[in-house]
């Protein structure tokens, strides 16, 4: 145990120079590009696509929970809404995937803000219940409005997205597609985290009375937190729809929301690397431990409790990263 601790401490102290960072980045990009050719196993690529997709979803939920400080238990509602709106636009109007996705992002984020509007004054628990309740109403809507959504059977054979006359088809193409999206999400979150807007949102999260006192419009930041997070989830929903080629209400059930929340919590609220780590761990581990897949949800639950008791800030949290930075600076 102490050896592991020493190793972790050693890793924590590693600081790369700019040149080293550039080399590492190029190596990482080369690895991502070469990956589908190196591993010619469709199943492995599929698992990695799911990992990356959940990483994006976790980032979007973390924006709502970690940055804007609102507890949403209905994230699956935005994710599912994105999937259904995009699919319906593509199937009924023959719209291009990218245009349809854009519309569904705008639609979902407007909806997310409308949902958030009445709950602005409420505390965390109430918001959690409202979002959870709304997720349930949404699922009932999907199941019952058979004319629109084809009900519990779902919508099959969703066409592949076409870009400049080239159809994205097959696991490898989708792998590159989701990797581009993941990089874009990370870049966006980094930019967001360091921007004045992101900092203002964190201030509102920390203490909304103090935030009001320095002239921040707390309502605006809370609403936009939901709006941006919901829009990002809608983009992932659209990806899921075309990647899977079929969607049904069962893909957007309550357990999926819990999965995303546990990824956020395990990784660390308000942490970008934490979100990615949490998503990869909780998606890949159950696949590696297939023999124990029945125990997966039991473990998720136990893990959440244990995490909250021993390390409530998550594995790779913002606070512990900052602490580490200061420690290294102090040692110098």
């Amino acid at each position, binding site marked *: 145990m102490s050896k592991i601790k020493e190793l972790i401490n050693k890793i924590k102290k590693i600081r790369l120079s700019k040149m080293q960072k550039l080399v590492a980045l190029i190596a990482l990009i080369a690895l991502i590009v070469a990956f589908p050719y190196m591993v010619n196993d469709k199943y492995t690529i599929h698992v990695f696509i799911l990992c990356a997709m959940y990483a994006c979803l976790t980032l979007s939920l973390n924006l709502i929970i970690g940055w804007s400080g609102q507890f949403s238990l209905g994230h699956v509602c935005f994710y599912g809404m994105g999937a259904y709106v995009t699919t319906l636009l593509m199937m009924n109007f023959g719209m291009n995937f990218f245009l349809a996705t854009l519309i569904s992002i705008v639609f979902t984020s407007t909806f997310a803000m409308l949902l958030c509007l009445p709950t602005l004054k409420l*505390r965390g628990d109430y918001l959690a219940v409202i979002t959870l309740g709304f997720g349930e109403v949404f699922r009932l809507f999907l199941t019952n409005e058979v004319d629109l959504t084809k009900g519990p059977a779902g919508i099959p054979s969703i066409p592949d997205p076409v870009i400049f006359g080239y159809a994205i088809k097959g696991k490898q193409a989708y792998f590159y597609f989701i990797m581009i999206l993941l990089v874009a999400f990370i870049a966006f979150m980094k930019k967001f985290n360091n921007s004045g807007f992101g900092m203002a949102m964190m201030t509102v999260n920390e203490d909304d009375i103090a935030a009001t006192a320095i002239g921040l419009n707390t309502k605006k930041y809370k609403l936009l937190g939901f709006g941006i997070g919901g829009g990002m989830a809608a983009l992932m929903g659209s990806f899921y729809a075309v990647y899977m080629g079929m969607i049904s209400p069962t893909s957007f059930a309550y357990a999926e929301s819990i999965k995303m929340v546990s990824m956020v919590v395990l990784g660390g609220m308000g942490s970008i690397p934490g979100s990615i780590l949490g998503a990869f761990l909780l998606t890949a581990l159950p696949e590696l431990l297939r023999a124990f897949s029945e125990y997966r*949800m039991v473990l*998720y639950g136990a893990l*959440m409790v244990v995490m909250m*008791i021993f390390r*409530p800030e998550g594995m790779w949290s913002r606070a512990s990263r900052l602490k580490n930075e200061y420690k290294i600076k102090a040692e110098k």
Partner: protein
Amino acid sequence: MFFQHLLNGLIIGGIYAMVALGYSMVYGVLQIVNWAHADVLMFGTFIGMLLATFLHVPVIAMVLLAALFTAILGMAVERVAYRPIKSANRRMAVLVSALGMSTFLQNLAQLVFGSGTRQFKVFDTNAYEIGGMKITGMQILILSVTAVMLLILYIMVYRTKLGIAMRACSVSIDNAKLMGINTNMIISGTFGVGAFMAGVAGILVGNYYNAVYPTMGYLLGMKAFAAAILGGIGSIPGAVFGGFIIGVIESLGAGYISSAYRDAFSFLVMILILIIRPAGLLGAKHIDKV
């Protein structure tokens, strides 16, 4: 037809009221939502079902044993998942931990008992007709058990020392401690009493629908929570009142508007109430102190 729907609503409302009390009392004392409450209820119902079908325990003993088990489980949940949490952002941490506990219990039940639906029928189900309304023996039983349980709870909370201590804790837990009340014990007791009521409610609802399954707590719990919010969370009469209102609204909505959206009505009502009157119908207005 209207009175029939009303009656059905009142009956299911009684069950919601009993479950809602558990949410409301815990919230009153600790200001946290016990998300695992409904899953504790489901576990208790399973135990009752196993006792009745495999061990052939007499009905009354079965109900008491199962409810006692539920109470112990409820107290254990508090001990394991809520008490050890000491984080700077305690509210969020407890919320996540409670959610984890709920997921844990639900999936543990799926592992242990299987994910299928089991039958559970130990009470009289003959139908009677009173004044043009159909009522089954089961429904009469639910109404009378609800009434008795609520009466016992009323006496306990308003007429005994334990109840006074509980109410003191819900006013201010620090001051209660200064007055020499063993607050940890009272918190445990509150969880226990809430879970006991939930255990009885679970057995009744399991028999009412003749079905026990690992996810049965989810919807029931959500509706009961909606009831607790509707009546004003933390208020005991509020929870009872809210339970009956949610039951009636659901029954009338399913009867007159759309039965496919039966489960949506309680959520929509809850969202509406939170917009109009966030403190609930009978709840005290809460002021956040700086």
